């Protein structure tokens, strides 16, 4: 087992290097560079800047150099200094901004993930009580949760807050008076008052998905021969369900967990845009639109690394869950 983990970790190194190369390549693909988008932005506002000044800036940011030189500089600074470069758009180091946002992204995503695990429980209930009222209710909400777009649910919840509960401000994770205040109990309570909207929105889709997957898997497993065998040898229904059926039915869900972390970081994008949550998603989108290369590549690299790590974790969980899997 230890050898397996070590081997996987060693394999992660070339994988991450390849990812780094690819993300830098991809972030350079769109036509133009961050300065041409900067210029376009200025022109759209009717501002003026001279061509020479743009060329000087281009030189200053090394945008006039060949791709490999730019990539080498970028990669070298990450490995040697942990420096992901400067965000042109925000005028600050990329790493400083990303870490701050990553903390919010990860904690929101993890909480939403926990909420979505509720779907497993509901799915089990739904499958074991097939065609009961409870099953119909769960199925109804499952479909509803899957089909309502996140941005709509977010707007709807905020609309309800303003028009029916008289909220004095919506959007963001804090009331304006707490947003920049140091942490305190009152600020935490304020956070709880706001954070439920993104959590509910982000959690709903996951929960609904889990209900559907879990219900289908369970029904599939419950009809298998070994279930009849288990019941036939006189095991209690609880043991049959939780020890034999559940363990088999969980496999696809655990496998999908490997994608859950990076997926949720991207998946929260629309929700975060609408609600105005300071997570990675909106930052990433803004960076793409303004061609802030260092920021785009930094976030993509981070998502890549998260994907690699969470895949490892998911594989470990699967090994633990299913002894048949060889490594």
């Amino acid at each position, binding site marked *: 087992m230890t050898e397996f983990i070590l081997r996987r970790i060693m394999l992660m190194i070339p994988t991450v290097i390849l990812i780094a190369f690819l993300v830098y390549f991809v972030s350079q693909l*769109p036509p133009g560079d961050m300065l041409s988008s900067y*210029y376009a932005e200025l022109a759209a506002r009717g501002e003026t800047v001279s*061509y020479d000044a743009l060329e000087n*800036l281009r030189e200053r940011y090394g945008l006039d150099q060949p791709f490999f030189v730019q990539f080498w500089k970028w990669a070298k600074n990450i490995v040697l200094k942990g420096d992901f470069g400067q965000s042109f758009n*925000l005028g600050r180091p990329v790493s400083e901004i990303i870490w701050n946002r990553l903390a919010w992204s990860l904690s929101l995503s993890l909480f939403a993930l926990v909420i979505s695990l509720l779907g497993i429980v509901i799915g089990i209930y739904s499958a074991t009580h097939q065609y009961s009222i409870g099953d119909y209710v769960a199925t109804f909400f499952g479909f509803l949760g899957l089909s309502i777009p996140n941005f709509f649910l977010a707007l709807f919840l905020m609309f309800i807050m303003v028009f029916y509960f008289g909220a004095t401000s919506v959007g963001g994770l804090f009331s304006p008076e707490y*947003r920049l205040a140091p942490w305190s109990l009152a600020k935490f309570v304020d956070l709880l008052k706001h954070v439920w909207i993104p959590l509910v929105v982000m959690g709903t889709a996951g929960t609904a998905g889990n209900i559907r997957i879990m219900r289908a898997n369970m029904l599939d497993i419950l009809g298998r021969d070994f279930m009849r065998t288990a019941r036939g040898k006189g095991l209690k229904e609880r043991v049959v369900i939780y020890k034999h059926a559940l363990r088999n039915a969980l496999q696809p869900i655990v496998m999908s967990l490997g994608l859950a972390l990076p997926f949720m970081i991207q998946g929260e994008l629309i929700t975060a845009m609408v609600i105005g949550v300071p997570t990675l998603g909106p930052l990433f989108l803004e960076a793409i639109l303004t061609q802030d290369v260092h920021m785009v590549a930094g976030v993509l690299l981070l998502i890549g690394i998260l994907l690699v790590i969470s895949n490892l974790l998911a594989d470990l969980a699967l090994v633990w869950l299913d002894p048949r899997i060889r490594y």
Partner: protein
Amino acid sequence: MKSAMTSQRSRLFTSTLLAIPFLVAMLFGTLAVAQYQEAPMLAEMVAAGTLPPVAERLPSNPWVLERDHPAWAAGGGTEIGRYGGTIDMAINWFSPNMLNWYGPARGFEGVDEMIGRNMLARQEPVGGGIEPGLIASWEYSEDGTKLTIHTREGARWSDGDPFDVNDIIYTYIWINQNEVLGNDRPWRIEGEVVEITKIDDTTAELTANGQTMLGFIKTFITWFVMPEHLTGPVTPGYTEGATEEDFDGAGDFGNSATIGPFLPVQGDEAQVVYERNPYYWKVDAEGNQLPYVDRVVIHQFPDTEVIGLNIVSGLLDFASRRVPSDLAVLMSNRERGDYDVVFALNDRVPRIAFNMNNPDDVLREMFRNKLFRQAIQYSIPQERIGEIIWPGLWEANLPSIHPKSPFFDEAAAAAVDFYNFNPERAAALFDEAGYTLGDDGRRKMSDGRNVGFVLDLDGQREPAWVRMLEVWQTELDALGVDLTINSVTSVIMSERRDANQNEATWSFWTNAPFDPVMFQPQEYAPVPFDPGLRSATLRGGIPTAEEIRGYVDAGVRYPPGWWPAEYEAAGDLLAQAGSLEITAIDEKMEIYRQFQEVYLDAAVFFTLPTGPLPTAIGTDVGNRPAFGDIPVTMIPLDAYVEYLFFTEPQ
């Protein structure tokens, strides 16, 4: 002051118009208020000994907000406000220099208005004159080749350091022309670099190798001056060993200074807090130091719907919408959110222009056909477009001199009749231009292809713009012309333009009434977006005939015939007017009248209708300027925030 006044009188003699700024300056200079009051939060700091008394913080002749200031004249004059409170505003884009306004993107955002822009001098919102600011007065030499400026004596930066011409000269030489920082922007007049010479700490002279400096004071309105005492030590070249990284790192919260009413003190990408500048150099008519409100908070909500919800929720005191798509919601929830809806002047006019130099020979020939362009102009259903986006509020825009300008010639405008949607006339013009209908009901170009063009726009910025074009699309379709709406990002738009791949491009033109005295052609004469024109549009100007010839001589950008002849004729007229003496009003009038005729007839570009910007403002906000006359941008920071106050205690 005495000698300055004497020379002012001699100017008065030669030109009454020129003297307006000096009169204003004299008025402010002589009006002495014996006693000054300050905000309670500052009084506390004075009592605690952390801040000098208000009289020592103000310049010897503070700027006074008169009761009859023109921006408030429509509402019966300004009021004496009360101190305190926080004004909440919102934007849906993020401006990097809200966090670090010395950084590379410095000086280009609307936020600047609060912290620096408009502070040296300001365009009067009504009337077109120039209001003195920290440049308290100025005068031109007899021959107009020298501009002398006088900064406000005793003025200070928000950290108490004196503000004087040293800051201006430092910024001009070491920031604007600092190649290490990527700047190479000396001011030029007819190619000659403007030189600033210091006379003493409050006086400087500007010359440009014998060129006329008349009207140059305007440059200072949008110019951004840097605090020499703070950024000097980190400016490469100015200080030995300072690097660009040092410079970019400067200007964070707690380490910046402003000459504007508010200073950014705290913030992140979602919210920035601005606090009053204790050294702000303006007072009201009773000697109360401005600004009235303690703080301004700018919230960033990426989704405009959320801005709307927060207007209704009552969070925002001041918020403007780009298009009134949710006007009904705004109007029906005024009581819930405690706000009024006012309609602010919208001076950003959508304009559409063809690429006269498209590489496709047949297309190019079509775009350069004046009759074709006129037909296009008549095919725009102004009223239907207006009613969709601005029901009952829209106005047509004439692609020419602003109707409020004294040079506007109604007869010339009416003769062209471009306001009116006229499909029959359009069809006739298409036919006359040789683009007749084929058997399939589509008009044909000379090589048999269908008549049509691709119009690039940045539709993600505002989906309503695409809706406006879709209305036009159906009309063109009925006329047998294909309009392809190409909604892309601004980057792709400009890339297509640079690669000369664009056929027609949507952009905005700021259609402001221009100042008759200090008239500069590029202030209003709009330029179609031709790729080769890029450097000209970068400067925000129309190239004069002379410039075009210069380019042609250089053999690079403008090959002969780059412009259709009728464009050149218009450019020639502008150049002719620009070369006239500033006082030759009558001659100019005649040239501008001719210009209007030529320009409108040439159908250089097409404008779509616009309407005012619905702006929500808290019911308890006092001293509101005459919004109908003042352009208010997405964040209404240039709408005189320093004069607003809350009528009720907060």
